[in-house]
């Protein structure tokens, strides 16, 4: 029965691969090429770091060992977390679970089949992020066959341990809270955890490890490195075992640590199947109990309700109001604002941490140069945030899109509503990034005005691209709206958006250099140069207008032809 329960997943995957039409094939090819590039970049970076470690006398290998430890710990944390998230949907929220529970399969069999789904869904990241790093170790240390064998079986053990922990955590959570609430709790906790980790990571500045001179003493440096060591951590056993196969330890260490890893993996697997006998069905039954939730109307919402139609017209405001309500009532949506807040804090912090005074370039020149580059960086940040929020906006209509399709609302008004809904928040985000950074950098008024106006040029284009391409590549069938951004369309959006930001910045670079040099050197600018400056800025304006108009038009056409 266990294997029968796995069949739909396997057959579905086989059909997806072998029955893919030309369009899907092309998408898979593009994603495959980009994925391979990503793997290659991680591999090259890892090799570069390991080779630079090797050049450090005495402690080179020690550093490489520590890095292996850190990599494994990071991968393990990601795996546990990923098992919690996909365990929740595979074990409790999938649409086909009711059907499966109605079959003669035992609870343990069903649990085991779903646990395998969870493991398959979660462990791909080990392959994507881990494989190039491990291969870099193999490239640098040239180990024997035992490394590759150990790599496979120890990673399997790590996956089993992470799966055991993640699944036990989610079973415990669901038996306390209903699954729908648990999803919110998990999302909130994970976001908070992510925010804290992100901020702590940046404040600790791990890149300093590459530079031992930055530490007061060798003892301080080594104690910083020892932070991740713990004999009770499974990653420590796996790291020790792998390290021994790289030719630096006796095989006894490999056997002992492998035995520790596998016995823990086996124990956790048995324990989770045993726990499932008493916890799984109870939790599943609870997850079907819908909780009655009231739609509250707060004072602020009442004010928005009244004023939005006056500003944007009734139909556009209706869509915007619906989206505002849906956004703030969905814990998985609004909570991402926390992450956004952390991103801004870290972004600004990075500028305060820049060692500008150590640079050989003139300080005022460097500050303004950085501020200019910052416009591009802020543009990319807005693009990334738009990929998460703006691009899935049309897909967010979901299965209820028939309401819009069958209503008299013209589709350009739907696009306009989505566009306007995101425009102001994105302008605020972009302007906050550049203005606050410029204040920290103490730039000239000219650069300040230029940054603010460039953002006013870029953001409308990026948001329009997000809405337009979101309409061109909609996914009305996904349960999770954020998934739309991770597909082919999201990738296309990121590429075009990055090209757009780069085009505007490149167009501005020439005139800014001329104007700034003239200002610094006190040189008068000729009428011809003024003409060139004007043409460049005007062209940037034209490109922005073109991207905005064309994107929304393309989105409308795509929706008109959507089937």
């Amino acid at each position, binding site marked *: 029965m266990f294997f029968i329960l796995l069949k739909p997943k396997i057959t579905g995957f086989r059909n997806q691969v072998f029955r893919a039409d030309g369009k899907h094939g092309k998408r898979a090819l593009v994603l495959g090429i980009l994925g391979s590039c990503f793997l290659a970049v991680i591999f090259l970076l890892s090799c570069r770091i390991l080779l630079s470690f090797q050049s450090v006398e005495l402690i080179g290998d020690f550093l490489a060992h520590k890095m292996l430890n850190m990599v494994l710990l990071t991968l393990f944390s990601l795996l546990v977390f990923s098992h919690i998230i996909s365990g929740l949907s595979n074990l409790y929220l999938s649409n086909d679970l009711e059907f499966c529970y109605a079959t003669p399969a035992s609870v343990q069999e069903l649990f085991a089949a779903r646990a395998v789904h969870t493991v398959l869904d979660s462990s791909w990241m080990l392959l994507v992020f881990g494989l190039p790093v491990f291969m870099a170790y193999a490239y640098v240390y040239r180990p024997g066959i035992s490394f590759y064998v150990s790599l496979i079986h120890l990673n399997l053990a790590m996956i089993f341990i992470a799966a055991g922990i993640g699944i036990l955590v989610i079973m415990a959570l669901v038996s306390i809270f209903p699954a729908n609430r648990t999803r919110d709790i998990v999302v909130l906790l994970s976001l908070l955890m992510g925010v804290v980790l992100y901020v702590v990571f940046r404040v600790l500045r791990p890149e300093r490890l590459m530079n031992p001179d930055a530490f007061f003493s060798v003892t301080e440096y080594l104690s910083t490195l020892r932070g991740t060591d713990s004999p009770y951590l499974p990653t420590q056993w796996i790291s020790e075992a792998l390290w021994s196969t790289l030719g630096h330890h006796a095989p006894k260490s490999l056997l002992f640590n492998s035995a520790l890893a596998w016995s823990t993996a086996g124990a956790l697997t048995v324990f989770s199947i045993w726990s499932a006998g008493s916890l799984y069905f109870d939790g599943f039954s609870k997850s079907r109990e*819908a*909780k*009655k*939730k*009231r*739609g509250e109307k707060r004072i602020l919402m009442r004010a928005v309700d009244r004023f939005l*139609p006056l500003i944007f017209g*009734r*139909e556009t*405001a*209706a869509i915007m*109001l*619906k989206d505002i*309500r*849906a956004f703030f*009532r*969905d814990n998985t949506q609004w909570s991402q604002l926390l992450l956004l807040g952390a991103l801004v804090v870290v972004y600004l912090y990075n500028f305060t941490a820049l060692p500008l005074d150590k640079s050989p370039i003139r300080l005022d020149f460097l500050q303004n140069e950085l501020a200019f580059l910052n416009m591009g960086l802020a543009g990319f940040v807005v693009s990334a945030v738009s990929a998460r929020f703006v691009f899935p906006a049309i897909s967010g209509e*979901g*299965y*209820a899109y*028939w*309401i*819009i*399709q*069958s*209503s*008299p*609302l*013209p589709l350009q008004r739907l696009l306009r509503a989505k566009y306007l809904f995101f425009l102001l928040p994105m302008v605020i985000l972009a302007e906050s990034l550049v203005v606050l950074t410029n204040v920290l950098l103490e730039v000239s008024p000219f650069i300040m005005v230029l940054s603010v106006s460039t953002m006013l040029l870029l953001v409308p284009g990026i948001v329009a691209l997000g809405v337009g391409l979101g309409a061109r590549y909609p996914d009305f069938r996904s349960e999770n709206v954020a998934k739309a951004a991770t597909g082919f369309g999201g990738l296309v959006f990121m590429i075009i958006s990055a090209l757009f930001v780069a085009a505007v910045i490149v167009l501005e670079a020439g005139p800014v250099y001329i104007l700034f040099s003239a200002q610094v050197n006190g040189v008068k600018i000729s009428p011809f140069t003024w003409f060139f400056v004007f043409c460049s800025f005007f062209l940037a304006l034209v490109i922005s207008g073109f991207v905005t108009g064309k994107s929304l038009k393309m989105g409308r056409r795509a929706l*008109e*032809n959507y*089937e």
Partner: protein
Amino acid sequence: MATIELIDLTKYFRGVKAVDGVSLTVREGTLFGFLGPNGAGKTTTLKMMAGVLKPTRGRILIGEKDIAREPGAVKHKLAFIPDHPFVYEKLTAAEFLHFMADLYALETGPPLESEIERLLALFHLDGWKNDLVEGYSHGMKQRLVLCAALLHRPEVLIVDEPMVGLDPSGSRLVKDIFKEEAARGTTVFMSTHSLEVAEEVCDEIAIIQAGKIRAQGSPDDLKAEAGVDGNLESIFLRFTERNPNSHDVLHSSET
């Protein structure tokens, strides 16, 4: 009120003909039943009539206006009720109905508020109007979609499998409402699998198979044409007997 006219309506899905040159006219105030086996092309036809799908060929005239040329004007007269009542889960029933009123540009004020209250009470949703739709059962969502469809007093109601998910009292209520609407002059175009429903409420019936209309007329006309005595089931089976030259068409929109 408005008539419905379908002229040579055809729809291909990736080269497969789902609807094959359907032509029919439905007089205003008629309760029209659209019958057919699974995958016959019913939902596709209805979705094209509601402006949700684009026909590959042919025209759809609602009250003599072409939906392809004047979609906004035609959709003001229409209401579409799909087979799956997907609505915005994070809105309450009251908020959803106000949203629909905005989309159809209905006049705001006390008459609209009292109409919303009346419809919610009619469909027994008044006690739930301030609860989020995500907590509703399938039947409640179906009733909410019916409320929304009637809110702008449409001249044409296009309904796909209206009784799915409704309990017997809900089903009775819906049948009575459709009859009342038709008596008031609203044209009701309803697809259904339920031959009992069709026999009980429809003035006229069309049977579609493999994308083509096989028969059309009143239940009595169809009985005569089929040459069978008895209920609609035997007529339906007579017209939908598998034709060796035709094939059942299955495609994504026909769920």
